[in-house]
């Protein structure tokens, strides 16, 4: 056993400022029970929308403005002195954004003496299913978001093996870039998902990059195909061009086929029939359907967190931090944020 469970109740404050949301959460843990007491998020969606993507400098400035109120909201009537530990996401993410959360957490830790815990954002996503479910180990985890597309085998808390990751674009990034090409605006995921429901996923045979037997992903070629397809469309009469619905549906099918097939192959290869799908793209309706069908076919258990825990949140950071807490893995005040941080 990598850790021993402490019987006494623990109260952990989680902080995540890795991208465009300022989030803080309070988690109460008591043996096997996990209670999300609060999960406060200040979204920067409106700020970045007009730019068609996240502007790092604007994001850090907004984090600085919002970190106090968001942490206060999460704490509610609790005081910093009541905390057992502060768990903060140190990366991967936007460096300027991460620094705000890390510096803030260090300041609380320094002024109150409360222990500080460093958490990898990907570990947070990987364990996010535990906020609502209790998947048993081992399980396969697919973390799929705007910045990540990674497959892991989880054998226990802190025991993760990376099986594959994207060689170029993340799945969510392919959505955002394709949406921009189609003139749909930002963020691309929900817009393409909605349009795709009205379209034919078999209308255009966009390529699926299975990369042989590898568990890595590649979505850059798909993006290039969409570019090429749209260029060709411009050369034919408007009346015979493909509809946006069909393009969206066909693009989405190409992404989802690859994600589902890779997850399925991983389960077959490892013999593990338990799958966690997490990260922002995990709330995509077509992906959920496809994964559910695949899980039924494979007689596998499937865990997908509800949307509020799929997107970036601090509750998952607090939960991941709890297990470092039990192991006595604390960070010093020399803790620093890292933009690139493999799990």
């Amino acid at each position, binding site marked *: 056993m990598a850790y021993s469970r402490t019987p006494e109740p623990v109260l952990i404050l989680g902080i995540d400022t890795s991208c465009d949301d300022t989030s803080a959460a309070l988690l109460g843990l008591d043996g096997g029970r996990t209670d999300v007491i609060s999960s406060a998020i200040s979204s920067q969606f409106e700020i970045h929308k007009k*730019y*068609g*993507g*996240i*502007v*790092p*400098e604007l994001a850090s400035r907004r984090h600085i403005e919002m970190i106090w109120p968001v942490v206060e909201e999460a704490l509610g009537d609790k005081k910093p002195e009541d905390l057992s530990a502060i768990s903060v996401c140190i990366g*991967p*993410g*936007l*460096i*300027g954004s991460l620094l705000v959360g890390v510096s803030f957490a260090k300041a609380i830790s320094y002024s109150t003496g409360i222990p500080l815990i460093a958490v990898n954002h990907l570990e947070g996503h990987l364990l996010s299913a535990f906020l609502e479910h209790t998947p048993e180990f081992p399980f396969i985890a697919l973390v799929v978001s*705007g*910045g990540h597309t990674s497959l892991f085998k989880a054998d226990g808390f802190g025991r993760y093996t990376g099986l594959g*990751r*994207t*060689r*170029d*674009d*993340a799945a969510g*990034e392919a959505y955002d*870039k394709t949406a921009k*090409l189609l003139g749909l605006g930002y963020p691309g995921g929900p817009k393409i998902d909605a349009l795709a429901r009205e379209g034919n996923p078999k209308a255009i045979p966009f390529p699926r990059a299975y990369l042989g037997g590898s568990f*890595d992903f590649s979505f*850059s070629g798909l*993006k*290039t195909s*969409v*570019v*090429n397809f749209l*260029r060709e469309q411009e050369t034919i009469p408007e009346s015979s061009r493909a509809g946006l619905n069909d393009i969206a549906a066909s693009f989405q099918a190409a992404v989802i086929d690859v994600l589902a097939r890779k997850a399925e192959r991983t389960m077959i290869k490892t013999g593990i029939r338990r799958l966690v799908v997490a990260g922002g793209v995990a709330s995509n309706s077509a992906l959920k359907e496809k994964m559910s069908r695949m899980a039924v076919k494979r007689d596998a258990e499937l865990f997908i967190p509800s949307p509020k825990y799929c997107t970036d949140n601090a509750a998952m950071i607090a939960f991941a931090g709890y297990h470092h807490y039990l192991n006595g893995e604390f960070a010093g005040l020399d803790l620093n944020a890292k*933009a*690139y941080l493999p799990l």
Partner: protein
Amino acid sequence: MLTLKSASEKETKKIGERLGRLLRPGDTVYLYGDLGAGKTVLVKGIAKSFGIPEKEVASASFTIVAEHEGTYRDKKIPFFHIDLYRLEGGRDAWEIGIEEYIGGHAVSVIEWAEKLGEAPDGIRVNIEVVPGPAREIIIEGVNEKDWDNRKRGR
């Protein structure tokens, strides 16, 4: 100025690798070209020439800056892969402090250099999609003699 043709990802990567061998610490490469032109592929090639595994280099659109550890003549050097895709352009790019990543001992490659407006001195590479579909890769700041003389550099 050099004009090269590439018919595949593999060729683009090779061109990147060859370009990489002409670079020295302190050099910056500015990359221009549309979505899907193959900019990240070229970066993979450049990175490879500094001993960075291809697998380690993915799109940097999300984090804007990805830092890798490269090797130049047996010495460790920082290799910065910068992607300005998400930025609005103009002041944005300078406001995130990209000058911090240019020069010194580092080799930096900047995708979507269009967003910088006027780029400072350095090597400029423009990747154009041409019928084929193939890619025309125009390299400014490297002369033909250096390109052909493989003995120079590493």
